[in-house]
């Protein structure tokens, strides 16, 4: 078994999560951590028994074959381009960019060296959703007619994050755009979005929304409904239902434990996980396994820059639809 030396760029919340998984993965060896905030890099490196190293040195180190980019979203594309130019394989947290045009312009450079660029959309690695996708693809419920995706966050994000998030569609719905296209296996030709700020007026003051309902029309005519909320009040609500000609397939929420209580007032179950890190813990581990497969040459990246761009164009179209109050046609690409 080849153990691949990798480096982490970005030692924040996502970086720590990926770093811990990388350390636990026998196929990967995390040899360096870089962050603009050197103290953050050093602290994480010390905790995981690895070294804090400036990004430039990582790029120059030929022994490091791959980088894991979990820096702030606005630096994803730039860091990915620099890594590819240095001959590294890239694992980049979603999204690769918040703007479609720079990403479209960067595609030739990202693809020029032939180094794999994997953009990590965690839902694709969730065992529940993978099973749904596989069973649909095997024809278990026939042709798809409708897909419903409920993606509601437990609590609103830090308000400081909102202005640099790219807005609800690019930051949050982007997952659902990717999941929807992946499950249905077809491109979308039209999107309609209604959005509102119903949870926290401070989000509207920052120019964003916190609640949205979208309808997408697939090339085959299949209809997809996406529901987003920044705050459920009851944990992470993550459900998918696929309605086909021969019945439906659905993925429900998971609960923290399986303990249920029966009492005079009825039956109660344990809460849903409160964070994406808990709900998608298996998916994050599977992402790294997939990346190890890519580094071993056993797989090509399940999602790359073009997938990121496709999701981003849907987010842009949704934004336009909401502003215009009308459906927006998409180029069938």
């Amino acid at each position, binding site marked *: 078994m080849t153990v691949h030396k990798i480096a982490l760029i970005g030692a924040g919340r996502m970086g720590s999560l990926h770093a811990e998984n990388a350390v636990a993965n026998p196929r990967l060896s995390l040899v360096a951590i870089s962050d603009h905030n050197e103290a953050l890099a050093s602290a994480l490196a010390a905790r995981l028994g690895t070294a804090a190293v400036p990004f430039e040195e990582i790029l120059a180190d030929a022994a490091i074959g791959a980088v894991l980019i979990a820096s702030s979203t606005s630096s994803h594309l730039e860091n990915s381009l620099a890594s590819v130019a240095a001959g590294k394989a890239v694992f980049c947290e979603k999204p690769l960019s918040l703007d479609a045009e720079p990403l479209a312009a960067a595609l030739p450079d990202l693809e020029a060296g032939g180094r794999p660029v994997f953009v990590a959309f965690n839902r694709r690695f969730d065992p529940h959703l993978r099973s749904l996708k596989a069973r649909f693809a095997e024809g278990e419920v026939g042709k798809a007619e409708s897909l419903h995706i409920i993606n509601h966050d437990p609590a609103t994000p830090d308000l400081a994050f909102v202005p640099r998030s790219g807005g609800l569609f690019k930051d949050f719905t982007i997952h659902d755009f990717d999941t929807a296209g992946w499950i249905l296996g077809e491109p979308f030709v039209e999107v309609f979005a209604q959005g509102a700020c119903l949870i926290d007026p401070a989000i509207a003051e920052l120019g964003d929304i916190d609640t949205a*309902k979208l309808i997408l029309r697939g090339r085959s005519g299949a209809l997809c*409904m996406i529901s987003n909320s920044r705050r459920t*009040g009851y944990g992470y609500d993550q459900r998918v239902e696929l309605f086909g000609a021969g019945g439906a397939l659905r993925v429900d929420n998971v609960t923290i434990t399986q303990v249920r209580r029966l009492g005079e007032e009825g039956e109660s179950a344990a809460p849903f996980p409160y964070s994406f890190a808990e709900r998608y813990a298996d998916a994050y581990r599977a992402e790294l396994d997939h990346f190890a497969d890519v580094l071993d040459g056993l797989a090509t990246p399940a999602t790359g820059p073009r997938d990121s761009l496709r999701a981003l164009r849907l987010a842009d179209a949704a934004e336009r639809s909401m502003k215009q*109050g009308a459906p927006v046609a998409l180029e069938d690409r």
Partner: protein
Amino acid sequence: MNVAVIGAGRIGKIHAANAATHPALTVKYVVDPIGAAADRLATEVGAIAATLDDVLSDRSVEGVIIASSTDTHLDFSVRAIEAGKAVFCEKPIDLGLEKAKSAAAHFEAPTARFFLGFNRRFDPHFARLKARLSSGEMGRLETLHIISHDPAPPPIDYVKVSGGLFRDMTIHDFDMARWLLGEEPVAVYAAAACLVDPAIGAAGDVDTAKTILRTESGKLCVISNSRRSGYGYDQRIEAYCAAGSLRVGNVAVSTLESWGEGGTQSEPLQNFFLDRYAEAYRAEMAHFADMLAGKQPLVGFADGIKALAIAVAAARSHASSACMAISN
């Protein structure tokens, strides 16, 4: 109290049986243009087959239950109101919005007693949802999801006279949305397609739709419709509020489960609206009996008009691929 049932078809039979078993009601007459159907149902519920004129001129008849074909609802309701009867009319009031509106004066007269049977409001599960939403325990309602998928498409001859998916099927959901949101929708967008049966498309209708409603205060509601689930009557509602969510799930034919090597298997969902809403139809009749005893109807003419107006706007939205304003 004596009542008459107009229409001895599928829904007329349900209402007649429920009226006959209600302790305060006696079914005196059954009316249907098909004499044999009227005779058969009249015999079953201990009533007399008669004409509408007989019913309206009999002063001992206090209430009239209109379950005849949709195109007669408006006319029969007006005639029964004019004859001083309390009216329980099956939904919809009519398929034509302007035609229905033009009859408003009859329904708005101070003496008119008119109850429009939107059965879902009387389903015990949905009624409980409404009560708990109204209690405020979950805080302000933000968004509402309604899934309303039929087990199998209706006969194509019915599709042709149904008024189309939005006026025939989604109208129930529009009424539920108005009732649960507690606000009038001001905008509607509907994306629809014929994905289930090409014959429905050939008849000029759709069989699958997703509809988004928006209220003045910004509350959003999504409605999903399909004419064919393939797995029974899929009838769910989820209400997302500031402090959490309330939801009503599907009703299976029994609570039996089997657990085997291949996984667990529960019983199928109820497969027919008369089964799923049997309780609701009984509750409607109990409400009509209360009305005859002086109570105000919970659903009236204005509700029928408003749901119809949303349906018309949704059909236009689909036809023009645009978001439509709903005037109230």
